[in-house]
């Protein structure tokens, strides 16, 4: 059966980035801390995903959708002028070139097919920057499902273009007016809504967060990034495997998918968080939105609101597998500021002709900084996932520049 799988799957010999251990654990993180009313629904998602993921028919259907609708495989682009200036060899995995403009479509197509397999007729989603919401609305339209997307009022203001795109695609966008009115609150509201809608709706979580099996399932749906890049690097790079693999981390789905392709290699894995949303770098153990992981919180245990110019990184926690990779020392997590990210976005635009999403610009900002201070030794090969395109951020940048 494995011969017909559309891509190879890298798992380190010690099991790192393989299936989570019993009860959805990645080391001491993960689990299914869901209200009792959602436990049965989570169990059903897990069971269906296990069956689907072992079913060549499901895998084939997903691979075909990824190819003919989402435009996979995405290219690996050498960033020639920037590499020359930085003194490293930088390659970009171009998730910005997927249909809908970000890696989010990889996960959503998988979950939408799963929802149909489970007999659900509607997708529920949370969104921050709007990329996951647009991807969900797109998959729903493509496959004849309904979509209800929860989005913080504050994000609705700063990502107006994506709100309009979702509505054009036929999705219902529900403004969330509680708490900080950003991604964290949109996620809470989507969970609340799912409690009352488990019978006909699938909660299409957008990142490697949430109750088991979501962190595992979303990483598996995103591993197409890393698995493709692994093959492309083998063909293109003089080192075969890059010395460093870099991706931005909000909840951490594009990073998890990228890292998964290199789990069994000596590549150094680097997750780049927003300075104001550094769950992995500065969070403490906690439980939020169904999983045990690292979250920004005050001394009393109240969750602290994240702040980032990139709405998609405005999440006060990180997926449980990233917390585990951090503890293992397998990946390191670093932070960059809003200003560094904006500078990196401009630099990529002017040296390579690519306007990146502000989320992805965080990963690039670290590459630029690390190449300058020797953290990335001269001549290193670097694979960076460019998780999304920057069209949605043009109005934000216009106000700044």
């Amino acid at each position: 059966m494995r011969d017909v799988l559309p891509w190879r799957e890298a798992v380190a010999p010690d099991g790192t980035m393989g299936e989570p251990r019993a009860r959805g654990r990645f080391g001491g993180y993960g689990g299914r801390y869901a209200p009792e009313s959602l436990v049965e629904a989570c169990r059903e998602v897990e069971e269906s995903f296990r069956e689907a993921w072992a079913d060549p028919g499901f895998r084939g259907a997903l691979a075909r959708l990824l190819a003919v609708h989402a435009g996979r495989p995405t290219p690996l682009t050498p960033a020639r002028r920037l590499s020359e200036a930085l003194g490293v060899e930088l390659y970009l995995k171009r998730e910005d070139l997927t249909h809908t403009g970000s890696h989010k479509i990889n996960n959503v197509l998988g979950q939408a097919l799963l929802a149909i397999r489970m007999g659900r007729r509607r997708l529920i989603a949370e969104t921050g920057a709007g990329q996951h919401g647009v991807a969900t609305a797109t998959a729903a339209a493509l496959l004849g499902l309904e979509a209800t997307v929860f989005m913080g009022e504050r994000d609705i203001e700063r990502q107006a273009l994506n709100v309009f795109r979702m509505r054009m695609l036929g999705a219902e966008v529900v403004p969330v007016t509680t708490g900080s009115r950003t991604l964290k609150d949109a996620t809470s509201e989507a969970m609340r809504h799912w409690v009352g809608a488990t019978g006909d709706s699938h909660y299409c979580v957008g990142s490697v967060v949430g109750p088991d099996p979501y962190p595992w399932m979303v990483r598996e749906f995103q591993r197409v990034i890393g698995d493709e890049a692994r093959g492309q690097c083998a063909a293109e790079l003089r080192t075969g495997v890059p010395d460093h693999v870099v991706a931005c981390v909000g909840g951490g789905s594009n990073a998890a998918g990228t890292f998964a392709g290199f789990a069994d290699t000596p590549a150094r894995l680097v997750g780049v968080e927003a300075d104001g949303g550094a769950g992995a770098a500065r969070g403490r153990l906690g439980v939020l939105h169904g999983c045990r992981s690292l979250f920004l919180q005050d001394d009393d245990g109240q969750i602290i609101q994240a702040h980032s110019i990139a709405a998609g990184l405005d999440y006060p926690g990180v997926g449980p597998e990233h917390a585990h990779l951090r503890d293992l020392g397998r990946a390191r997590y670093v932070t960059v500021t809003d200003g560094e990210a904006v500078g990196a976005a401009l630099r990529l635009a002017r040296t390579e002709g690519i306007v990146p999403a502000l989320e992805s610009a965080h990963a690039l900002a670290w590459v630029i900084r690390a190449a300058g201070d020797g953290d990335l030794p001269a001549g290193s090969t670097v694979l960076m996932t460019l998780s999304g395109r920057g069209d949605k951020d043009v109005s934000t940048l216009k106000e700044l520049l």
Partner: protein
Amino acid sequence: MTNALTAGAVERHLRARRDAGRGLLMPYVTGGITPGWTDYLRAFAAAGADAIEVGLPFSDPTLDGVTIQQASDTALARGASTRRILADLAEVGDLGVPLVVSTYYNLVLNDGPEAFCAALRRAGAGGLIVPDLPVHEADELTDAAEAAGIEPALLASPATPQPRLAEIAGRSRGFVYAVSLMGTTGERTALAASAAELTGRIRRVTDRPVLLGFGISTPDQAREARRHADGVVVGAAVMRRVLDGAGPDDLRAFLATLRLALDQECDRPR
């Protein structure tokens, strides 16, 4: 079946009242909601509450509807914290009915389950409800709670399959919290049909007291709930009034109407 002789203090109290034919009433208040918030506790006890639920507000109450969300935000904006609320509780002293603390698991983990349960005990609380801690994740809390003499009540939902319901009822302490409907906390216009079905299924596997919560807002609903369960939890209906400015005396009058409804239902020939 549960052995009543090994039950903790909360469960013994509720069993005794239930066995005497009384419909149980557990009103809820968000700790720290007003400067003199503990006056609500005294009012609840005076109105005939059989236990009182005290919420420790959390920034992200994922199972609460808009009323408890607002109450949590209001209390947190006033500077409420686990430490301050428990200090207030310790000053209240014995109200003659058990205090059951409820909160989200992040606040338990923040202190660590052992320290958290020990602090509850010192504050005079007897029970604990953690709505985002399902039975399969509950070991570390139930062990710590048992050591500290705290009774953690587990939640059962209309979606819970029967074998799991037996596990929940078996491992719950104090009472079993039956979630009446598939939804969040908040007032509803009618008692959900799922309430009767769920309480019936719980009764098949335990003789522990069963309290029905989520959506019970009026005397009529309390009366109807009493036909299925041993009693009711009333949260959002209380907190909406508190948020609208109702004082302890107003809440005492409101709860008295629920008390009367439950008592009348008990007097009906069965």
